[in-house]
């Protein structure tokens, strides 16, 4: 028998605004992404000093994931079987460019380890997993655009096969200050919004 799954909560970060389940939790006009995400980090009271060492994509994904997972009030002492299935278009291109700049010229060849470690998009999944003790299934897909159908099928499969108790899914894109967006949602056996492609698209486009 197929189990019903629901979208229990969801978060958006875009256009200088952070919202949880459709309610704005932080909004400010900042001159750049770095200032905006720092303001959002302080506003939602996420205490995690390593945040400031992350690249922009990881900061975006980490904060979005943290807001959703904190709303679940998970025990920090226990492991949680929450799978992470993320996607975007630009992969880790912003950090890849920074790394490329640091190795562009032979006479000024100083690759930064702190930049280099973020030259894969799925590192942001690791940052969330470390904080929330998620030793779970994870995947990061690259698509031309938000692919609700794929995310829906993948999350449903993980839950149906008992690979995870819940799945944190969505889109985290960062390709410069003018092009950032996070939309993450938690798929759970409990909730009010039915987990299907139409509802995912509706929440994403709201």
């Amino acid at each position, binding site marked *: 028998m197929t189990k019903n799954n629901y979208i229990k909560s969801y978060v958006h970060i875009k256009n200088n605004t952070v919202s949880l389940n459709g309610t704005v939790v932080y909004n400010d006009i900042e001159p750049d992404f770095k200032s905006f995400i*720092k303001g959002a980090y302080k506003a939602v009271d996420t205490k995690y000093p390593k945040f*400031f*060492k992350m690249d922009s994509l990881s900061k975006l994904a980490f904060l979005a994931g943290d807001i959703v997972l904190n709303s679940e009030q998970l025990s920090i002492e226990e492991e949680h079987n929450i799978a992470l299935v993320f996607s975007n278009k630009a992969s880790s291109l912003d950090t890849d460019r920074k790394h490329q700049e640091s190795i562009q010229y032979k006479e000024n060849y100083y690759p930064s*380890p702190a930049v280099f470690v973020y030259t894969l998009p799925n590192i942001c999944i690791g940052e969330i997993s470390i904080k929330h003790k998620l030793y779970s299934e994870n995947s990061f897909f690259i698509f031309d655009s938000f692919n609700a159908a794929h995310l829906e099928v993948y999350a449903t499969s993980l839950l149906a096969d008992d690979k995870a108790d819940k799945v944190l899914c969505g889109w985290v894109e960062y390709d410069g200050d003018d092009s950032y967006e996070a939309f993450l949602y938690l798929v759970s056996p409990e909730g009010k919004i039915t987990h299907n492609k139409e509802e995912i698209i509706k929440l994403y486009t709201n």
Partner: protein
Amino acid sequence: MESLKQELKENIIEQLNLEDISVAEIGDNDPLFGDGLGLDSIDALELIVMLDKDYGIKLTDPKEGKTIFESIEVMANYISANRTK
């Protein structure tokens, strides 16, 4: 030597993104790793790059960093004795 220590503290805060720490909070003899500033292995690699880029000191064995990066005082002494720029 005092200006070098000040410079090192400023560079470490900026290059290692120590957002909530000020120069005044870093003592000359405070341990940089472990219970001190809480730096990690990536920070250690970043400090090795900083030695090369800013002071022309190339560490061929990363294990050397363990003693050189003990504190600001130790770092400053090592840089003064070995800098090529």
